[in-house]
């Protein structure tokens, strides 16, 4: 298993764990307690506060602990709008923000606030001019991420911040992906509120912070009420070991930022070089400055779900993990102008402190092989709508050789980690077949597909004396679609046409144990089979009379 999903979450640095363990074991007191063990815990919390502040050029007192960047974003946005409600009810943000920001904004809309969701420019960035143009007299807050989590594109926060300060508009920045990756100096950048997360910086999950500027003071209405911790801005017992872990992670990030960035940029370049050699590969956000650890690539001519299923031993993501469960094409990539198909067939590679060159090379090789395999199964030797279109792909690059006989991982088909049925999974890993020449005697071809083109199944039958002498398929779609094609071709070979006419969706579903949610794939199979059988019947009729 190769882990290339640092943007979703990072491994905990062993040095961070070492710092945390004493506070999980012996020094367990509540930092709010007024006895010796409590004061020791409090001192550790304050040390960590200084460590976190130091990475971003803040004062320790400007750091408020939260349970993570989602809470920081919620506190900043909802807290500011609530506190400054007499000032106005308008927020400016971008469509490419993290869900935590977007969902907090949508919630505010239900409470009567107005939100402008800016569309980024074609390079993926939100330009300061766009933000300024969107300001209204009652704009309270602008919320913009420093680094986009899906593409790694860096927004011009340093240029925008003074412009908003001049105009008296509060500026919140989600820096979850930026901290430890790009230098942040809040002493020089007049951002008012800044969200931070530990688990993106080799720290623990479940802890984050919000920077709240003291001069000039940004005010917030607390969103978590209780014992009055964190200057009243965030109540709840402080999780000492978590906080200590975040402090240590940020201290290490500060020490190793430059070296990490250089090393990770080298890995990224190696990965890009290998993958962009593959025609039809598009580097998303290629025209904008990007962080070293994130690369987002779209692969034309393959379907996204099948692509991800083809890489079961690579831990990477199609976009933000937070929207992984929904399997919707990335809103960020659509905003960049990718169509649904391309947005879906994109992979986010993100490496970090513990990624090795060998891992990157192996991952790239795996991806190239699987993209070629899926394109071959789709019957597309050269992916059509893409050559030269990509911002960094294709043109001039040497295409790798066509796929060998069966590029299904090493040896047997790999274990299913995505929850497909055993039979679908086996058929999905069957090799691409070369189609029969259309001019060959008795060859009939027909195709079925969904209107939006998300699924396509082509069947070819070579009919000799009323029997299928050979059958081939080509398929573009999810793993179940591919499995249906592979199964139908094997089912047809050697059979009499009369027998095949009885094959329907129900039989396909039963044979492959296709669940209800995927029943449409079996219908596609039935449609393709009927189409090719009727093509054969018509030709036969025409020839007879």
């Amino acid at each position, binding site marked *: 298993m190769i882990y290339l999903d640092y943007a979703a979450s990072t491994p905990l640095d062993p040095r961070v764990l070492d710092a945390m363990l004493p506070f999980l074991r012996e020094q367990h007191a509540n930092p709010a307690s007024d006895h010796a063990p409590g004061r020791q815990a409090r001192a550790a919390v304050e040390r960590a506060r200084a460590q976190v502040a130091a990475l971003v050029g803040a004062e320790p007192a400007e750091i408020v602990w939260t349970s993570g960047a*989602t809470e920081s974003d919620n506190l900043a946005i909802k807290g500011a709008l609530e506190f400054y409600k007499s000032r106005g009810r308008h927020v400016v943000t971008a469509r490419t923000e993290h869900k935590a920001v*977007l969902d907090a904004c949508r919630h505010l809309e239900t409470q009567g606030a107005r939100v402008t969701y800016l569309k980024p420019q074609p390079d993926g960035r939100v330009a300061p001019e766009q933000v300024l143009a969107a300001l209204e007299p009652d704009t309270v807050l602008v919320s913009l991420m420093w680094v986009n989590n899906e593409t790694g594109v860096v927004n011009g926060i340093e240029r925008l911040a003074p412009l908003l300060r001049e105009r008296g508009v509060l500026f919140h920045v989600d820096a979850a992906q930026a901290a430890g990756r790009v230098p942040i100096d809040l002493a020089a950048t007049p951002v008012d509120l800044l969200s931070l997360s530990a688990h993106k910086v080799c720290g623990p999950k479940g802890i984050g912070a919000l920077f709240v500027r003291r001069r000039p003071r940004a005010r917030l209405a607390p969103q978590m009420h209780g014992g009055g911790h964190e200057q009243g801005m965030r109540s709840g017992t402080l999780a000492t070991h978590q906080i200590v872990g975040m402090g240590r992670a940020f201290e290490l990030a500060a020490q190793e930022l430059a070296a990490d960035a250089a090393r990770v940029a080298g890995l990224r370049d190696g990965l890009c070089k290998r993958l962009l050699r593959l025609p039809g590969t598009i580097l998303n956000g290629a025209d904008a400055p990007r962080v070293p650890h994130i690369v987002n690539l779209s692969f034309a001519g393959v379907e996204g779900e099948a692509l991800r299923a083809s890489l079961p031993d690579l831990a990477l993501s199609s976009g933000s993990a937070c929207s992984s469960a929904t399997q919707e094409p990335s809103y960020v990539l659509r905003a960049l102008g990718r169509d649904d198909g391309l947005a879906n067939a994109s992979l986010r590679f993100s490496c970090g402190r513990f990624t090795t060159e060998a891992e990157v090379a192996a991952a790239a090789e795996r991806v190239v092989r699987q993209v070629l395999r899926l394109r071959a199964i789709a019957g597309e030797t050269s992916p059509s709508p893409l050559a030269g279109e990509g911002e960094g792909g294709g043109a001039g690059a040497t295409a790798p050789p066509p796929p060998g006989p069966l590029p299904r991982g090493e040896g047997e088909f790999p274990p299913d980690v995505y929850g497909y049925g055993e039979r679908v999974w086996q058929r999905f890993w069957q090799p691409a077949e070369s189609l029969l020449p259309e001019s060959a005697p008795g060859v009939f071809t027909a195709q079925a597909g969904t209107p939006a083109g998300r699924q396509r199944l082509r069947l070819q039958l070579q009919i000799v004396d009323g029997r299928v002498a050979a059958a081939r398929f080509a398929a573009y779609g999810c793993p179940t679609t591919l499995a249906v094609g592979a199964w139908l071709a094997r089912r047809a070979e050697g059979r009499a046409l009369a027998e095949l006419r009885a094959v329907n969706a129900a039989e396909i579903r039963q044979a492959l144990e296709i669940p209800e949610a995927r029943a449409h794939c079996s219908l596609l199979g039935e449609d393709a089979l009927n189409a090719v059988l009727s093509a054969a019947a018509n030709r036969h009729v025409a020839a007879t009379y």
Partner: protein
Amino acid sequence: MPAYLDHNATTRADARVVEAMLPFLSGPYANPSSQHRYGRAARDAVETARAQVAALAGADPGQAIFTSGGTEANNLAVKGIAARHPRERLLYSAVEHPCVLEPMKALAAHGHAVEAVAVDGQGRVDLAAFEAQLARGRVALVSCMIANNETGVIQDLARIAALAHAAGAVVHADAVQAAGKIPLSFPESGAQLMSLSSHKIYGPKGVGALVADRALDLEPLLHGGGQERGLRGGTENVAGIVGFGAAAELARLELEARTAHVLRLRERLEAALRRIPGIRVFGAGAPRLPNTVQFAVPPVHSATLLGLLDKKGYAVSSGSACASGTDEPSHVLLAMGVAEDIALCAIRVSLGKDNTEAEADGFAGCLRELLASLGAAMPSVALNA
């Protein structure tokens, strides 16, 4: 002899809990929302823990929503219901934890009608007054803790819930202090919302849960990402959740043994305390948590005594750790009708599973000595009366 006697403030994570957490701190490091194998392993671990935590409350796994702790669970319960019923009253017992009281105050500032429910001299909800209060108009929510963090007094939640339900109200029970100390049954409690915290049951800090009837319509507190059935956004604290699960399972399996142990220590300690002239034990006439005793030896202020005990290595508290550092008398004791000058003398001892007889005896002895020396310094304290 130093002793940690502040288990209602927080507990030390059990070694077995830390052991269960370690693989998730040093091994599979994925985001449970990720679709790859690591992500799924993390997701499985979260779901196992969910079943363990639900089991401690006798609830179904699908009813548990993970939060960052008891404070968030209480905020989510109270504000989550209030947002859906802006025009109905919200009731809470006067002895609730600040993380119920403060959300109520915040809601009042936003125009919600909130009302405290009075308690009697033992800290138990005054049922007659409560019933009359319910009759005065629509009530959306009644929030009542199962056991109090300061006095340990246990409420008659079944009766409170029955009255609340008859009035059409949803019942929220803060079980943060009760969990792991007395048996819990979410379905039998009458509550539709129940808050739990990990670090009070020998689990890690920074994680808690709200057990919620799935039929309830709750407004989320943290938006974004759609985790926890859309009720609580944010990447799951996998190691913390796993630790909470392990702690909940141990608490359930060892409940009887732990209860018997701390009760024996508490009785021994209380017997010694009762020999101190002028001492007053709060809530002594009501059922209490087996590990908690809150007392005062007026006119010796808590601040004085706590400082001296601290120097001797005894970690105890005046009451709620969250309110530490403030010189205000406990709102719990005031609600029980305790005079302010006596409330300012409160000391809470909360025992834990790892405390020993020697520690309990040591504390009692130390306290007597300190009081004697104070008595010498302050002639007005009639210790030998």
